[in-house]
């Protein structure tokens, strides 16, 4: 009886501890690509640490900062990081590119530089339009479909309480009266069969007390199976998983236009570097999905035509296809609709040979052939598209220089005449000439309201998406406190992180030094996502300004990279010190 009781308790403890293990050890959100996901929503749906409630209490503060030896090129410095949890089992990592052909793998818990790479290729003279060097973030593979919105049950899970410490003593000569938990490679001769093994812990977890035992049961996945999911990796096929799966890869484009597939463990080239873009191009944050990596190019830097480029990650020779705008630059990042269609915003420009300007185009994800487009000469797009699902439709939202936000049906851009949006807002900018370009962000609150967050010239404007029988419109939500050149905000579990970048407006002929001299230190704010109320601020913690988009979040932390190469990590203390 006593032994049975202990067996049951031990098994239950193992299960409960397994759930707790998953929460405490490396689970949590990831930021796989710039703006977070394939739809570029900048939205982390759930988080175990960050919530409106937790941000109203003390504790969210600077956790670490680290100075990276990256030299800015004009005002291009550190890019937005992308993250990976569980690198070499327990390390949450950010992969951050630096303009001077650098890549840094940073331990998100500590700021420790796990590894760094430098691509030794010649760099051109930097200009504002064409800074040269690495002009965009790294990316990891992202799923095309977004994660499900929160269901109101909260994130995390808890981990029940198992029986705690305890002791026992045996009768003389009978040994200790503690039965095995099962899982042993053998049995005691003449003894009763061992107890049934405890149910395995949740995927990716292991029972408390059981260190990462390779071979304790089935051997860890190795070789091809473990490489499943990494395009171009040898022997992909089986579902690698658990602690046996490899750390994964990150995709980085160097200034010579060569794509590198870097292992996250040590930063080595795991696949032969592949020519992708013309050298010294200016490209936007890439995205990789369904074995293909995409970027948009702009400003014809390095002689690279403005366009959208795709490289087949799974093929050994990595063929490249492209679609030229024959017109304007691609504005910001390219984005994927949930059906995999590639979308890109095109800015103004002289159009030749049936090219496009002031447009949003839909491209076939494999061939990059034009499938659909929206164009309006008055719609000078200044933001990349962001995609959200409303009902059974993917909706594309993008901002124009005159301060409007346009909503388009991703399945029929601009309708039959390719120029009719589902909705066009009034101008959100008091002074249209100073409307700040930048990507939008979008999220959905618990009751189901869809929000669009628009960084304008001096604040974040939050708009609610109204759906009146299929007729979409944007209704005023809230406007944030004053911000200096805000960048695309990030939403984490209902909290909007708004970045006052501190970057001074560029004036005609201004050098990088001029802009830097007139800029002020960046300030990070946490706002309640439903009313914009300020919950927290970084105050004077950040001492330089944020020239670009080096601003991301994962696993309960928010990261900021400033022009001086300093990375800041804000979050709740994890009892590290």
């Amino acid at each position, binding site marked *: 009886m006593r032994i049975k009781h202990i067996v049951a308790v031990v098994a239950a403890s193992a299960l409960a501890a397994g759930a707790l293990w998953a929460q405490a050890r490396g689970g949590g959100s990831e930021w796989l690509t710039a703006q977070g996901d394939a739809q570029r929503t900048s939205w982390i749906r759930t988080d175990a640490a960050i919530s409106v409630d937790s941000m109203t209490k003390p504790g969210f503060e600077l956790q670490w900062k680290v100075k990276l030896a990256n030299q800015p090129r004009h005002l291009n410095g550190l890019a937005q990081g992308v993250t990976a949890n569980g690198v070499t*089992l327990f390390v949450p990592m950010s992969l951050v590119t630096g303009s001077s052909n650098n890549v840094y793998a940073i331990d998100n818990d500590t700021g420790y530089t796990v590894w760094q790479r430098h691509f030794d290729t010649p760099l051109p003279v930097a200009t504002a339009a064409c800074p040269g060097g690495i002009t965009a973030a790294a990316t990891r593979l992202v799923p095309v479909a977004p994660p499900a919105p929160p269901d109101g049950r909260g994130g995390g899970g808890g981990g029940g309480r198992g029986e705690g410490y305890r002791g026992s003593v045996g009768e003389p000569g009978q040994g200790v009266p503690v039965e095995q938990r099962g899982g042993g490679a053998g049995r005691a001769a003449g003894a009763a069969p061992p107890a049934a093994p405890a149910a395995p812990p949740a995927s990716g977890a292991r029972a408390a007390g059981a260190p990462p035992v390779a071979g304790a049961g089935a051997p860890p996945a190795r070789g091809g199976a473990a490489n499943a999911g990494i395009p171009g990796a040898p022997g992909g096929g089986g579902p690698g998983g658990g602690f046996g799966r*490899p750390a994964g890869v990150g995709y980085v484009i160097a200034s010579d236009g060569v794509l590198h597939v870097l292992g996250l463990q040590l930063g080595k080239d795991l696949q032969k570097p592949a020519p992708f873009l013309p050298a010294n191009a200016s490209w936007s944050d890439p995205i990789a999905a369904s074995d293909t990596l995409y970027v948009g190019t702009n400003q014809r830097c390095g002689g690279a035509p403005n366009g959208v480029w795709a490289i087949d990650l799974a093929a050994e020779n990595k063929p490249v296809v492209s679609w030229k705008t024959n017109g304007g630059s691609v504005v910001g990042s390219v984005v994927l609709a949930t059906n995999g269609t590639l979308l890109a915003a095109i800015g103004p420009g002289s159009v030749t040979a049936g090219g496009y300007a002031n447009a949003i185009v839909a491209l076939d994800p494999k061939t990059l052939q034009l499938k659909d487009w929206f164009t309006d000469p008055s719609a000078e797009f200044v933001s990349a598209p962001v995609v959200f699902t409303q009902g059974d439709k993917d909706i594309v939202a993008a901002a124009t220089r005159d301060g409007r936000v346009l909503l388009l049906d991703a399945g029929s851009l601009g309708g039959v005449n390719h120029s009719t949006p589902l909705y066009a807002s009034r101008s959100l900018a008091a002074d249209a000439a100073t409307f700040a370009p930048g990507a939008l962000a979008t999220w959905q609150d618990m009751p189901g309201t869809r929000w669009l967050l628009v960084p304008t010239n001096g604040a974040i404007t939050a708009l609610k998406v109204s759906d009146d029988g299929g007729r979409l419109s944007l209704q005023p939500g809230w406007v944030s406190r004053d911000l200096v050149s805000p960048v695309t905000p990030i939403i984490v579990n209902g909290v909007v992180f708004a970045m006052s970048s501190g970057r001074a407006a560029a004036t005609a002929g201004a050098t990088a030094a001029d802009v830097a001299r007139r800029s002020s230190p960046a300030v990070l704010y946490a706002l309640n996502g439903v009313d914009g109320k300020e919950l927290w601020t970084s105050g004077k913690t950040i001492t330089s300004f944020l020239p670009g988009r080096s601003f991301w979040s994962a696993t309960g932390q928010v990261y900021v990279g400033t022009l001086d190469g300093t990375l800041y990590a804000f979050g709740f203390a994890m009892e590290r010190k």
Partner: protein
Amino acid sequence: MRKLLVAGLLLSVPTVWASDFLMEGVDAARTGWVKDEKIFTTANVGGMKLLWKIKLDSTPREMHNLFAPLIAERVTTPQGVREVAVVAGVTDDLFGIDVASGELMWRKHFDTTFVSTGRGGGTLCPGGQTAVPVLGQTATAGKYTIYAVSWDGRLRQVNLADGQDVAPPEKFMPPNGKPYALNLVNGVVYTASAQGCGGVPNAFYSFDLATRRASAFLPAGGGLWGRRGAAISPEGVAYLGTGDAPFNPATKSLGNAIVGVRLDANKQLQLVDYFGAPNANWLFRRDLDVNVTPISLDYRGRKFLVGSSKECRLWLLDRDGLGGDDHRTSLHTTPLLCNDAQAFDGKGVWGAMAAWVDARGTQWVLVPFWGEVSKTFRAPVEHSRPTGGGVAAYRLEEKAGKWQLSPAWLSLDMDLAEEVVVAGGVAFAYAAGEDATQTIQERAWNEPGGARYGGGLDAGAPRRIPGSRYATLHALDALTGKELWSSGTQITSWNHFSGLTVANGRAYVATFDGMLYCFGVARPAAAK
């Protein structure tokens, strides 16, 4: 007969031959200090030579094979009085060796009640005999009993002189676990287990030889895998660190902590005290187990406990109140010595520390570590900035009314520094030379063998054995860290979770290939 044996055991007295090495870590407190070594000195250790080596017929399991020997200087054997070494082999073997000649005197292979299914448990759970035995001196001069835990979990009692059982095997703990080095105090054998191997709960275990009662205490905190097993204080408290689990006393979860237990009158282990570092749950998050056997030491009227972990810092604790009122406050916590990366494998403190007092009365703590020394660690005397591992020495000092551990010296670079044993003012340390990685190592597309996608867990022997190198024994001046002697390339194999023995002018290292090496200096005539 049994009653007589027990009576004899209860009459056991501390060793009278001070240069005996009766247990892993030298003594119950696991100081690693051979206090009365008569032969080794800093002056003569430089002349150390390989005296003999012997290949023992031990079958390795995973990455385990032989453990470090235990030594009794004057054993009454059928061949006369001999200095005898006993070596445990992982596949349930004991080997008795004549130290003078290096010849095998006897071999004992345990019978077993455990039937293996043949399903391996990997490097972390090799099965077999995983605990270094302990020698008990009986009331009869020259007669010693070997206490060992065999694969089937039974306690063995074997005559050191001839390898014969002196008592039938006793049921002790569940089979197929992974117990660590045995301790023996006041007629009680102690051990602790880890990794949940064979489904055996991670716990302290005790066996009272007089009453034949076995007891267990489960801290609910993951494995207890300090290399030298539990350290036992003069107060009879057994201390050891725990591994993977949250530290949350409210739910009675003592993960990543140092736990102290003691037998009650009913011979049951009871919780006495515990310490959870302020960052205990960080240690859990990163799998930085408290994997080091702490050292119990008394100094200037104070009762100290010194602990460490894979995180690679030291905790100085007061045994009169482990961690203070909140169980989380140390007397002193050092900055990181190594493992800036806070990696769970290949870095940190994995072996066993030593503590000794020099002629001037200074208390020292010597810490072997794996991997790069921390960028922030500085010692007044540095013989290198180690990249593969090394030994750091600290002085225990009272400054402005507060006790602290102050860095004193840093050794030369070592290939994974393991256990430290101090004898005659010489700090012996060995570099294990094993492949200590536990993840598949990434390899670029253009390196030999082609691309390898790394980072996934694979602690298995098939991957690590080919990457293992060779062990090296180092002799350092314990006051300065200066290297006085090294085995260089004389040892041709490596070892994994083995140990180091020093006694009577001889130092012993056993390796994975089944070889036991004995290095030594000439003994003065008076010591022969």
